[in-house]
């Protein structure tokens, strides 16, 4: 059995505070790291610096209002979070969402996934010290953000989905822009590989670092690209398909090494897969309404509802306990980052402090998602 204990720090240890303000914790996460020389002995995450109590706030809000709060969890996969909440509400109400909405949602989700992975790639490169990656990744991400801005109106926190459909229809340019982006990015993605993946320094830095076996990954609930790097087949899109994912063909990249490099490779492969998915859907968006008929005031029937989706960082799920009111009695967001963070000590024990940064980068931590 894995040592799940996050140990108390003892007095004599050489500890450093990594965070709350540190260049590579990507937000206000604080690791208290106990070192033996350069080797990491214990890692203890301290959370709560930006906890906003979204779950508590949601208990006073109507369902359509909660949607915009889910954006602010994992802000890099805002569409996907919206999707999860909207699907939960739709499922509870038994609303049939138009086919067009399903397709658009799937495409948007995948675009969001690519954008998120691009940002991960550049931030990972930056964590490793290759600053140039950062600009290449952001440059390409900009194209996706333009697509989002044209259709949804904003670039990061879209609030584009609403229970029953979409806020507004896609822009007429949408299809063309997505196709342009795909041709553009298919050319640029191999460049990422030449610059960073193939680089001997990068490979030496990441291979056999931050090891996680499949059993441990399952036990930790280590989902998403991180889990798939350990051979844990955890793709919700594959196992519990939603939206239009049952209509497309895609493979789930799986690596069995369970090290930082395999987590890296999974994400790189996922970008290709996402492009494949979009390509299969973009020409077949059916005509129709962009919104199913909904009541003006949404009240969920009494009961418990759950919807799982595959966000860019792992499994995101929304759990709603309703008492038949217009706001939920209890809403819980199962955020992938929070569960992945639980494994940081397990992953980085015994490795160097520089490896801790690489491991953190390979988990792609987004702090607001943990500090819900």
């Amino acid at each position: 059995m894995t040592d799940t204990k996050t140990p108390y720090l003892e007095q004599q240890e050489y500890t450093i505070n990594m965070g709350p303000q540190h260049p590579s914790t990507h937000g206000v996460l604080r690791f208290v790291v106990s070192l033996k020389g350069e080797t990491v002995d214990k890692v203890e995450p301290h959370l709560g610096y930006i906890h906003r109590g979204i779950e508590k706030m949601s208990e006073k809000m109507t369902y359509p209002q909660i949607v915009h709060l889910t954006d602010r969890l994992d802000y890099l996969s805002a569409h996907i979070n919206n999707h999860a909440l909207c699907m939960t509400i739709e499922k509870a109400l038994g609303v049939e969402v138009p086919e067009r909405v399903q397709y658009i949602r799937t495409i948007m989700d995948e675009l969001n996934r690519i954008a998120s992975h691009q940002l991960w790639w550049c931030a990972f490169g930056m964590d490793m010290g290759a600053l140039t990656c950062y600009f290449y990744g952001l440059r390409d991400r900009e194209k996706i953000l333009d697509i989002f801005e044209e259709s949804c109106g904003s670039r990061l926190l879209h609030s584009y989905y609403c229970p029953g459909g979409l806020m507004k229809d896609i822009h007429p340019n949408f299809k063309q822009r997505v196709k342009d982006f795909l041709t553009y990015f298919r050319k640029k993605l191999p460049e990422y590989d030449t610059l960073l993946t193939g680089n001997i320094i990068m490979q030496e830095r990441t291979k056999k670092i931050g090891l996680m076996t499949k059993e441990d990954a399952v036990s930790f609930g280590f989902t998403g690209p991180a889990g798939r790097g350990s051979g844990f087949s955890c793709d919700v899109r594959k196992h519990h398909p939603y939206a239009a994912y049952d209509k497309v063909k895609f493979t789930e990249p799986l690596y069995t090494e369970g090290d930082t490099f395999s987590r890296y490779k999974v994400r790189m492969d996922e970008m290709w897969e996402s492009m494949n998915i979009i390509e299969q859907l973009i020409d077949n968006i059916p005509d129709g309404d962009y919104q199913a008929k909904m009541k003006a005031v949404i009240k969920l029937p009494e009961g418990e509802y759950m919807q799982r989706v595959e966000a860019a960082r792992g499994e995101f799920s929304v759990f709603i306990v309703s008492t038949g009111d217009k706001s939920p009695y209890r809403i819980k967001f199962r955020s992938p980052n929070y569960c992945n963070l639980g494994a940081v000590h397990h992953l980085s024990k015994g490795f160097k402090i520089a490896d801790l940064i690489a491991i953190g980068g390979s988990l792609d931590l987004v702090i607001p998602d943990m500090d819900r």
Partner: protein
Amino acid sequence: MSFSIYDFTAFNQAIDQWLRSVMSPGWALITELTIIGLVFLLFYALVGLVLVYAERKVCAFMQCRVGPNRVGPYGIFQTIADFIKLLMKELVTIRKADKFLFTLAPFIVIIASFMAIATIPFGKGLHAIDFNIGIFYLLAVSSLGVIGILLAGWSSNNKYSLIGAMRSGAQIVSYELSVGLSLLTPCIFIGTLQFSGIVEAQANGWLIFTGHIPVVIAFVIYMIAATAETNRGPFDLAEAESELTAGFHTEYSGIKFAFFFLAEYMNMFIVASIAATVFWGGWMPFHISGMDGFNHVMDFIPPFFWFLGKTIVIIFLMMWFKWTFPRLRIDQILTLEWKYLLPINLVNILITAFIVLMGWHFVK
């Protein structure tokens, strides 16, 4: 030799004689030292400003950006603006820091780089001092800088700084070996440690062209080791901004930080100029033996520009490294040194010695 029009020896001697004629020899020496010091100080500041600007522009172009472009045309006054900002900033001292050492550290770093610049020949007769043990002196002096870094890390009373300083210590002490041994290869070929001698010996062709494969290998090793010695990416572990925030100079601000900053760029300039001098012939113009017409044309370009041009190319190479590669880990850095560079270097020196023994080399 046809480049005598650019020979500064006579010019220097004229100044020397004039000074001695107007004052006692002792005062003349002091005056000369002061003048040289002032000239180098000016040069130092200028090179620092230019290199910072150049680095920003180079990395910007590599990253699909335009870089600084607001202060002055093409942003050329950006570094001056930054320097003024640094001058005006508050000097933060930490309560539990060792105040004396904390203040001393940046000076040691900058003095080390300042001393190293003295031996570099910018042109014929254009150097502060021409030791007959030039390279030896340079190696000795340039490794003083690590003391400053260690002091800075220790006295800051900051754990990040301490880790950074210790990394830097381990790294510089190791790479000092490679720098020294890789500079030995050309010295064996040429047979002198004096910089003027090294440059003169390359009159008929730069060492990198005439020195067989060993010199090329030595040059590559020198480039790697020199990048590591100056604490630049991909070997910038001492700073490692994603791991240690800013490493040994985390707690420094204002002009003290500017000293570290300037010293980093000066060190880069120094190691690049050594590479240019030892491997690429210093201020020696590009000559192809047998083509006199071509050689004469080359001679008309002043040696100072030859020297600067070569240095700039090597500095650009170092910038290119920094903005392309991810950072190494501390154990990998030491592995690279002790498992790869050092054995190759030793074998390389043996081969060089063998070549010289057999008399197969071109350099006289």
